[in-house]
């Protein structure tokens, strides 16, 4: 995977958010450049859900894409997997460059469907919010994990099942041998999400996208899954694109943060910069809205949340 051979143009790369048009830095996995995505509403009308978004992800880095419902964060993530075109979306502009395991850099927006299919799971994988609807209810979870391994790595079924078992152990599913033969309904929400992560990891992708992976889970289970993602990253050093609306989760998991509002990135920076010196009013409003445990320790009576309303955004409906 030490792929840095093909691109030796080495044009000096300008400061972070907008990467150079030519070369991709050696340790960059993904570079999204001025991405525009629009949906057809009628024959003439279109809606631009993503309006010129740029960001990069380095090897082993966790980038959080933060925003509220409708900000375009999930559409961005799904487009990286080229999944939005099934919902009538069109990539109206920009490109998504990805460094493949082979070391070559490809523009995902221009790949033919057959290539994209090979890329899903093996180069990039995605974990969705609701593990119950992303697992097939009529297949055993072990077989569902093995399926990707058979398809992408050409392993035999017994080999793939052995690898699937290792994946379940990697994501700390207790009693993994027995769980292999369980159906999704026999597992709890947290266990299902672990299975989804195991499936996403099965072909060792260089980038894992987690789209609100803990929103449907209980708080203690959310803490477990965040712990797991952190640990896995240390163990196998993959890059993570973490989509969330919860600044509390961002503080726990991200290295860098991009804040999205109405299809645009309004602010980006390291997690410390964002939390300690947020520049944009919307970022400040998002951070202010997070309830902070312990903020009421010296008060007897309840108190309303301090409202920092970002008015230009219209989020205050």
């Amino acid at each position: 995977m030490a792929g840095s051979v093909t691109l030796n143009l080495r044009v000096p790369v300008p400061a972070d958010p907008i990467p150079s048009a030519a070369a991709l830095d050696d340790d960059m996995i993904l570079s999204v450049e001025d991405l525009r995505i629009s949906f057809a509403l009628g024959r003439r009308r279109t809606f631009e859900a993503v309006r010129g978004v740029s960001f990069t992800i380095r090897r082993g880095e966790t980038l959080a894409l933060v925003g509220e419902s409708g900000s375009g964060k999930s559409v961005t993530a799904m487009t990286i997997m080229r999944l939005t075109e099934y919902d009538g979306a069109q990539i109206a502009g920009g490109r998504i460059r990805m460094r493949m395991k082979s070391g070559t850099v490809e523009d995902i927006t221009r790949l033919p469907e057959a290539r994209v299919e090979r890329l899903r799971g093996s180069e990039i994988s995605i974990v969705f919010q609701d593990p119950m609807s992303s697992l097939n209810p009529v297949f055993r979870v072990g077989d569902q994990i093995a399926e990707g391994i058979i398809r992408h790595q050409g392993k035999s079924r017994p080999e793939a099942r052995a690898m699937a078992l290792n994946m379940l152990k990697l994501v700390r599913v207790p009693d993994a041998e027995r769980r292999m033969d369980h159906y999704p309904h026999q597992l709890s929400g947290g266990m299902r999400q672990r299975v989804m992560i195991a499936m996403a990891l099965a072909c060792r992708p260089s980038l894992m996208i987690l789209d609100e992976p803990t929103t449907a889970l209980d708080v203690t289970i959310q803490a477990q899954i965040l712990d797991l993602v952190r640990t896995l990253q240390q163990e196998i050093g993959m890059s993570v694109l973490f989509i969330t609306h919860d600044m509390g989760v961002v503080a726990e998991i991200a290295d860098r943060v991009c804040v999205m509002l109405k299809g645009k990135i309004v602010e980006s920076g390291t997690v410390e910069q964002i939390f300690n010196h947020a520049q944009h009013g919307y970022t400040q409003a998002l951070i202010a809205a997070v309830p902070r445990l312990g903020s009421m320790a010296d008060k007897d009576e309840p108190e309303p949340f301090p409202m920092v309303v970002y008015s230009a955004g219209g989020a205050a409906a």
Partner: protein
Amino acid sequence: MSSPTSARKSQDLARPLVEVRDLVTRFDLRAGLMGRVAGRVHAVEGVSFDIVPGETLALVGESGCGKSTVARSIMQLEKPTSGSIRYGGVELLGGSRHDVLRFRREAQMVFQDPFSSLNPRMTIARTLMDPMRVHRLGTTAELRARAAELLARVDLPPEHLDRFPHAFSGGQRQRICIARALALDPKLIIADEAVASLDVTIQAQVINLLMDLQRERSIAILFISHDMAVVERMAHRVAVMYLGEIVEIGDRRSVFTSPQHPYTRKLLSTVPVADPARRPTTRNLMTEEIPSAVRPPDFVPIKRPMRQVSPTHWVRESD
């Protein structure tokens, strides 16, 4: 007065609006041809608490702990196995139809999902007027005027009266649900994870609105939530539920500053901290799961006593 159930301050002598005592709600699981009882879900097991007017009692816990079943039992949407639920001093379980109707008018519920709790075929005007019409509170013109007032109270313009739910965002819908709950001038609002599906900024607005309304009309709120950080902001008292039981109950300040029960401490430790400098390394709770509340039919629950920590704070003995 000082019992595990009540009083945020010992001098607080307001008469409780709701008194729940030893509430037990179990669901039979049947199996086989004869439909014999194969097991029972012990959803609620001996829950007791009071709520006084103008007070928010937060019921916190994770999925399956029985917090929603408590709410549904109070609202008479489930039939409790045993126990007592008194409202304004009147027993509701096995009570007269008249008493239950009065209670239904004065107690309203706000549910988690504002998408499925509004009828998509009804205009907002009709949604808000229906409860008032059922209880015969005026002529159509009067009710419409009142609906417009309600909408204004939750900060939505009256022009929205003739729109349908699909035209609104999640936060706006939840405001409409709150307006509907207010239509009958309730004394008790049960909010079951009412802000859980909203974006954080919208969540803060909806909670501030609930707190305003409470102050204005001294409504009692039973606030059901899994989010400790939200609860810390808005609750006067907190009851922590685990496997159908209240394991800790007390005034918000002492439960949050000196949690006694191991489960309360665990809940508090898992709240994400919005400060990257205080990022936890790991919490060592890698795979622990919440145990099941399904028991064999002959299961007899163990009753553990509650221990008093302070005049307003009680904890269940754990082993």
